């Protein structure tokens, strides 16, 4: 059985293996022991802290196979983007050229460096073992974060965003980067992403173009990357799109990948989530897959189970499931159909 739980320090070795396998563009997962150790400690502190209003907390989850205690994926929620270090995006909005005398009026799309998405809650660091892609487990890995937000709304913003990894080739070439970032950073794309994961992101501010970039001036290959998703980022995108997230006019400044945005209360796994009483039953089981979680912090757990459940009734779970959720018979369980 697979369960999702907060990361702990003993996960370090396995986590680094996951980081090694993750997409280049997932910069929140650096393949660096010390950096990962810091991330784990920061996450433990975040779960433990008594938060009255959202701050710098980062909640780091892992997907574990309970049988072999093997980690198969991870995901994160940063309570506040831009809280500790600036959160940059490129805003894609038209610059309006207008002349009444010449009867000309048109918009030229322009990319401007901004920190508009600061203060939003950020989903990031989504990575799953390839065998589990497009399974209920990958769905859980992404959406259990939203269930957690539903259980602890005071810890998060009223809007949630995520950046989907943009297009790059199998050989690690990003046409968007080559046309834009490379001029300013003088680094190959892969190296820039790696530094981004390792370093304080203030180097971005020092090197990024502060004047607008007019889209028609970029080569076609780079224009085509604006809002384009890396094939391996498609699932992360699809899951959140079904949750009600939408693309907006912001893109990633390295690879041009899209940003997804949703108002927190309208996210499906938050709006439609229900709480019920969990009951130990030998007649558990059913036909509909559900995502279930407890409402704890440090002992937060989520699993997928097939149930026959109707609203206002107790949720029948077997002992293994209750145990995986760290719930006692009669405890509150949160659930939503997958």
């Amino acid at each position, binding site marked *: 059985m697979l369960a999702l739980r907060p990361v702990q320090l003993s996960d370090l070795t396995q986590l680094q293996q996951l980081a090694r396998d993750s997409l280049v563009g997932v910069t929140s997962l650096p393949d660096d022991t010390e950096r990962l150790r810091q991330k784990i400690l920061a996450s433990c502190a975040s779960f433990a802290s008594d938060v009255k209003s959202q701050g710098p907390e980062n909640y780091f989850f892992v997907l574990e196979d309970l049988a072999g205690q093997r980690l198969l994926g991870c995901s994160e929620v940063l309570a506040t983007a831009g809280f500790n270090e600036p959160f940059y995006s490129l805003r894609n909005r038209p*610059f309006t*050229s*207008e*002349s009444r*005398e*010449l009867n*000309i009026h*048109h918009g*030229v799309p*322009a990319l401007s460096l901004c920190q508009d998405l600061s203060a939003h809650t950020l989903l990031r660091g989504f990575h799953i073992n390839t065998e589990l892609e497009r399974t209920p487990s990958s769905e859980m890995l992404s959406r259990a974060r939203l269930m957690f937000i539903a259980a602890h709304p005071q810890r998060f913003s009223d809007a949630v965003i995520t950046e989907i990894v943009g297009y790059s080739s199998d050989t690690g070439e990003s046409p968007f980067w080559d*046309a*834009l970032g490379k*001029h*300013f*950073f*003088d*680094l190959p794309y892969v190296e820039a992403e790696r*530094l981004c994961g390792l*370093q304080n992101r203030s*180097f971005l501010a*020092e*090197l990024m*173009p502060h*004047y*607008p*970039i*007019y889209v*028609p*001036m*970029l080569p076609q290959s780079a224009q085509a990357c604006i809002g384009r998703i890396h094939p391996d980022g498609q699932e992360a995108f699809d899951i959140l799109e079904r949750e009600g997230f939408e693309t907006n006019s912001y893109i990633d400044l390295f690879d041009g990948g899209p940003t997804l945005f949703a108002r927190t209360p309208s996210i499906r796994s938050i709006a439609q989530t229900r709480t019920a009483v969990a009951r130990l039953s030998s007649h558990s089981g059913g036909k509909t897959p559900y995502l279930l979680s407890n409402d704890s912090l440090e002992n937060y757990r989520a699993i997928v189970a097939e149930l026959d459940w109707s609203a206002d009734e107790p949720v029948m779970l077997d002992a293994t499931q209750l145990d995986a959720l760290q719930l006692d018979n009669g405890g509150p369980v949160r659930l939503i159909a997958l």
Partner: protein
Amino acid sequence: MIVRPVQMTDLPALLALARSAGPGFTSLPANEERLTLRVRWAQRTFAGQVERADADYLFVLEDDDQQVIGVSALAGAVGLREPWYNYRVGLTVNTSADLGIRRQIPTLFLNNEMTGQSEICSLFLRPDQRQGHNGRLLSVARLLFVAEFPHLFGEKLIAELRGSADEHGCSPFWDSLGRHFFKMDFSHADHLSGLGNKSFIAELMPRQPLYTCLLTEQAQAVIGKAHQNAEPARRILCNEGFAHKGYIDIFDGGPVIEAQVSKIRAVRNSQSLDLMVGTPDDNAPLWLIHNQRLENCRITAARARLVGNSLLVDRLTAKRLQLQAGSSVRAVPLLKQQQQAVAA
């Protein structure tokens, strides 16, 4: 050959010149109505009836058979009636000490810094007359005119040289930049510009600086490069002390060359002399000579000898200048090299 203010009777000749210059020469359109307006305005300018902001000193080059073979002009000031735009090629430096990165990125800054300066412009010489010192006379005569009447002009003279273009008249600079904001081709934009819509067009351009590294390589290569046809004009002016100091045309990226009036050779080295009529020897140097008149301005180039405080010229030269012996003239050696000979 003389350079003199344009007259109404020059109109047919001007039209012929405008036609042979072609559509690229936007400041002299082959349009009778507009040329008539321009000539009338130039006459009022020479008569001292217009403000500096509107002054348009249009000269013609006329041979001894009273044939007009070229034109050139001086604008009293640019940018005082409507904004005058240029790009300045500046620099953005990107550094990160941590990463050991240091990038220098030439950046174009839109500006109105030439506002109030005077412009030399509209020079065209009939192709079959591009010989001897005709081009130099037509161009440098304007500088001697400024030397005589500095109060009518700004502190600096500027000239926008036509930018580099391919054989079809397409400008790589325009194609990489302006085109995206106007959605029209260069010749159309250039045409509108000639109709006096230049500032309207400029207002369609973005105000923020532009990184040149995002232009096409072809466009980057022509920043500040004059069209090959503008090369002779550039050489003449640079010999007079004009230099490119980083300003370029916002449409074709051609260089704006500039000079402080007081530092221009033909201004600084010109002197007021008494005219002496006689027979200068055949080895006498060529001088550029102005009769010091405004409305009846006559400027010519002729062999002359400096004798004390007088300039010895032949009778024909005095006639061309509409002067008698004893009149006062402003003169400067036509060529820089002869300047040294005269001084020695």
